């Protein structure tokens, strides 16, 4: 870690914001020789309220949809200047900016092979505009555009499989991480920037306001998502999968911590469907820790 803090106090994120915590961990792990391009979204809004900035690295705010394209241009310019080998480029944004509106630019960045680390801060909805569902909102979540009603128990769709979509581009490094595991985030960022080519890390970041939990529980809630199998911590290195092993807890333990799932707590059928999501993850990624005798 460098002496000069790279992401400082005075930003205007909500108390207990998982995204502000993760963003600091990422830039600390990447180090001072880094240029950041950032989609529109909470992170950019709360860290760069004009005329101040919480960043101590060069920072460029793109549009909502084109952060990966802007970062591609930055990387190409650094190459031309002969400075790419000493400078990291990070492109980052929220789940909406990454998995929905920015996916086209991101796919292009991967496919053209730019030497960029893309970080998606996954708070599972469009938080900055008031909790609208995104492609990364999980099944059964109550959001303002997937509200609960007589015939609806929230978001009817599962999360878009972004790590798989990234991996299908044949890029050298794809990982998921979680605000509940700060050291793991930093290890993955360091590994990613040591690899040449396009990289993708998706970090699960609780949003106390949008998920409706106490601000002091951000870390606990993030951990439970991993421990239930709902947010597997995986890595694809050149396509080869490794995953953090767990002794799976029932999904209720995670669901009951948050107001956004309150409506399904006495709906066994809905809970069963969420449990199936976790079970599929556990199966697919081989998450279950085999007990050694």
């Amino acid at each position, binding site marked *: 870690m460098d002496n*000069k*803090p790279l*992401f*400082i*106090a*005075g*930003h*205007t*994120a*909500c*108390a*207990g*914001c*998982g995204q*502000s*915590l993760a963003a*600091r*961990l990422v830039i600390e792990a990447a180090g001072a020789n880094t240029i950041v391009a950032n989609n529109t979204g909470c992170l950019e809004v709360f*860290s*760069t*309220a*004009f*005329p*101040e*900035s*919480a*960043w*101590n*690295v*060069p*920072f460029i705010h793109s549009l909502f949809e084109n952060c990966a394209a802007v970062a591609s241009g930055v990387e190409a310019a650094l190459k031309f200047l002969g400075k790419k080998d000493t400078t990291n480029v990070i492109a980052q944004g929220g789940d909406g900016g990454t998995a929905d509106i920015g996916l086209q630019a991101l796919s292009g960045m991967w496919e053209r092979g730019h030497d960029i680390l893309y970080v998606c801060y996954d708070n599972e909805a469009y938080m900055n505009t008031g909790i609208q569902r995104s492609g990364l909102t999980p099944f059964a979540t109550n959001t303002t555009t997937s509200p609960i009603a007589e015939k609806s128990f929230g978001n009817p769709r599962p999360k878009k499989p972004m790590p798989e979509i990234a991996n299908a581009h044949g890029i050298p490094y794809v990982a998921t991480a979680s605000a509940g595991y*700060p*050291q793991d985030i930093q290890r993955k960022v360091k590994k990613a920037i040591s690899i040449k080519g396009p990289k993708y890390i998706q970090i699960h970041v609780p949003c*106390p306001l949008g998920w409706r939990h*106490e*601000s*002091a*529980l*951000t*870390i*606990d809630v993030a951990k439970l998502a991993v421990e239930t199998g709902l947010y597997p911590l995986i890595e694809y290195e050149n396509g080869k999968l490794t995953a953090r092993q767990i002794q799976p807890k029932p999904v209720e333990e995670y669901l009951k911590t948050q107001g956004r799932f309150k409506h399904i707590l006495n709906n066994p059928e809905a809970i069963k469907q969420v449990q199936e999501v976790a079970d599929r993850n556990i199966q697919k990624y081989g998450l279950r820790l085999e007990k050694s005798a």
Partner: protein
Amino acid sequence: MFGPLTTKPGTSKANKTGSWRVKSRPKFLQKNCIGCKMCTVVCPENCIVGKEKNAYYCEYFFCKGCGLCANICPKKDILMIEEDKEEKEKK
């Protein structure tokens, strides 16, 4: 020029976000601290300072009182105490 350019980096400390605290704030007891640094690692404000054990403290000018530091402390050496109105006004 393309609209607003922020030319000075690292300037957000102009916002004294500590005024946001409503209920409680962390008190660093500095008794059983083992210097594990977890409070500094999880602080979303990056406003906890310290290097040696039993010498960590919080910059209340910026602390929003989220409680993550107290929650993660393995020695329960950080307590969330009720916000003292008078003291808050002094700061």
